[in-house]
């Protein structure tokens, strides 16, 4: 078990995880109520992956995420308001309502527009990392993807080039055992779908308990350090589990009950909370207060978003080509 960091840091991580959890659960209920448009792919259950990996990144570092972006985006610092507004398709959304749930992000804080083409972000991450290297920065790119994505051709092409060019990128597979409804065992012969492929590129890899934020953070630090020092890419495979379905209307009928039970007993937010209290980093009362603040803020942003302005229909015609602006 990894040593608990000092209080501010430990609680900081918990806060982010709790925010993601609360955000996703709130969104879930908004969908159930039928007042949120579109579809969702939620990240609760996988909070430790996002927070552990991203907690120590610089603003100038980049993350690249997927159809399941909320945890990563919140951890990287995309504003809660702009995320919630985007979920509601509002003009103040981080994509002005043009992106939607699968495309959140904010390049100004290093969160590249999320990508809903499975595997699509992996070669893009290579390009982002190439830029970091060419411009002689020591910034890095952290690219998240799922177990299913590792079977895509894009994975192969991206990882090979990242290795050959020694790019400052960390490829992070969140292996939650399923791609949509399909068990990864049906589509890959390997125990570790990403990590066991490192040798095919000459990339070092690690398998990590993806529900332990400190374990993720520590492995992340090693990988990010290598990247910053110009030692090239790393593959991290984080073992984790979705709490919810793949997308809306998915009751997870394809997941065995015992499997769910076993994984839910390792809930990353709850177990870290228990440790914080057990190891007397913080009291339960303090935590409850923090949690309430987070919940209140999310609720407030829901209200804000609901009441904020819809985009003008005609604004759909803009931004097809770049019109100048923040960058």
């Amino acid at each position: 078990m990894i040593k608990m960091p000092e209080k501010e840091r430990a609680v900081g991580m918990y806060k982010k995880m709790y925010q993601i959890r609360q955000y996703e659960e709130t969104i879930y209920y908004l969908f159930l109520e039928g007042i949120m448009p579109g579809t969702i792919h939620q990240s609760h259950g996988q909070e430790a992956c996002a927070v552990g990996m991203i907690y120590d990144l610089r603003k100038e570092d980049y993350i690249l995420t997927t159809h399941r972006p909320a945890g990563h985006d919140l951890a990287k610092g995309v504003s809660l308001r702009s995320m919630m507004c985007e979920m509601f398709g509002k003009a103040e959304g981080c994509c002005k309502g043009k992106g939607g749930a699968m495309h959140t992000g904010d390049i100004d804080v290093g969160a590249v527009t999320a990508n809903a083409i499975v595997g699509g972000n992996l070669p893009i991450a290579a390009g982002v990392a190439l830029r970091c290297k060419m411009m002689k920065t020591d910034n890095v790119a952290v690219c998240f993807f799922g177990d299913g994505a590792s079977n895509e051709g894009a994975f192969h092409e991206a990882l090979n080039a990242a290795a050959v060019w020694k790019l400052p990128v960390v490829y992070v597979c969140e292996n939650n055992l399923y791609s949509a409804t399909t068990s990864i065992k049906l589509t890959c012969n390997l125990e570790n779908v990403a990590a066991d492929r490192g040798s095919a590129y000459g990339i070092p890899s690690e398998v990590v308990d993806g529900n332990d934020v400190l374990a993720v953070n520590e492995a992340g630090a090693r990988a990010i350090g290598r990247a910053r020092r110009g030692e090239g890419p790393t593959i991290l495979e984080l073992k984790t589990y979705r709490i919810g379905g793949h997308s809306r209307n998915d009751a997870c009928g394809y997941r065995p009950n015992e499997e769910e039970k076993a994984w839910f007993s390792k809930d990353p937010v709850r177990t870290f909370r228990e440790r914080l209290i057990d190891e007397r980093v913080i009291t339960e009362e303090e935590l409850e207060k923090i949690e309430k603040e987070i919940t209140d803020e999310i609720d407030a942003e829901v209200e804000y978003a609901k009441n904020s302005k819809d985009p003008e229909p005609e604004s759909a015609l803009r931004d097809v080509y770049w019109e100048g602006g923040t960058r």
Partner: protein
Amino acid sequence: MAEMSIADALKLALQEEMRRDETVFCLGEDVDIKGGMGGAFTVTKGLLDEFGPERVINTPIAEILISGVCVGAGMTGMRPVADLQYGDFLFCMMDQLVNQAAKMCYMSGGKVHIPMVMRAPCGATNRGAQHAQSLESYFIHVPGLKVICPSTPYDAKGMMKQAIRDDNPVLVFEHKLLYGSARKEKDAIKTSGEVPSDDYTVEFGKAAVRREGKDVTIVANLLMSYRAQEAAKELEEEGISCEVIDPRSLVPFDYETVERSVKKTGKLMIVHEDTYNGGWGAQVAAHFAQHGIFDLDAPVKIVAAYDTPIPFASPMENFIIPSVERIKKEAKELAEF
């Protein structure tokens, strides 16, 4: 004869063809996992139970592979039917479709041929730009492919069966809002209708006149064929009579039926959800600019999605995609030209 949704009609076609021909098989991501959805829109749900995992293959997320398997199996005597979840992922298999499937018969001097069906759900449904496209127009430009877009349960069954029996690669565009599948879609249209239980097929290259009229000819496919009919119904009350033609297959395309109609109306409008520039409507308009210009009493109109990626938020999505109102307005303008 039974009333059923398009999703179920497609499934019935698959079942019937798999029963009658052991070389037919299905494949795709999540195509039929127990406890799953049966593709993204329930069409293939339940096939596993009847046909087993050898003929209902849940693939890795690997579109090059899926399409390549179709090419390889097809050229050696099988009849693969692949499900793509979302048509947008066609771009991930574009090489196999355009450079391989479409050209192999030709490059081999007609020795090799590739029966294969690629099923591509299409249409904008509040999912954002990468899960929303109408993509027919890219594929009408590929010699060697056939492109169909059934919009009724009757056509869905008959054309799917025809597609499976075709000896060439066929792309099937199925509209998410027309499926009527258990997976509810906001703004979905109820399309269920009578589907014969016998072994019929619907020939490609025959348009369906969905509504007769004499003032304006409207050619519209998939969701737009419904919106055009709705617009026509409303315009009828204003004394404007529109003929609505659903081409049903884009390659081959039934110009004759459209020509016959335009000879009568003198006015041609094409409506599609695919974007405007270089869309299939341009091809139809170009056909008339070349071969039917003297039948036209007015400029042609193309009413299409505006040239943008599909936006997420409803106000914008609804603005981009031709609405009943927009179709009405344009048809009226044309009628009154």
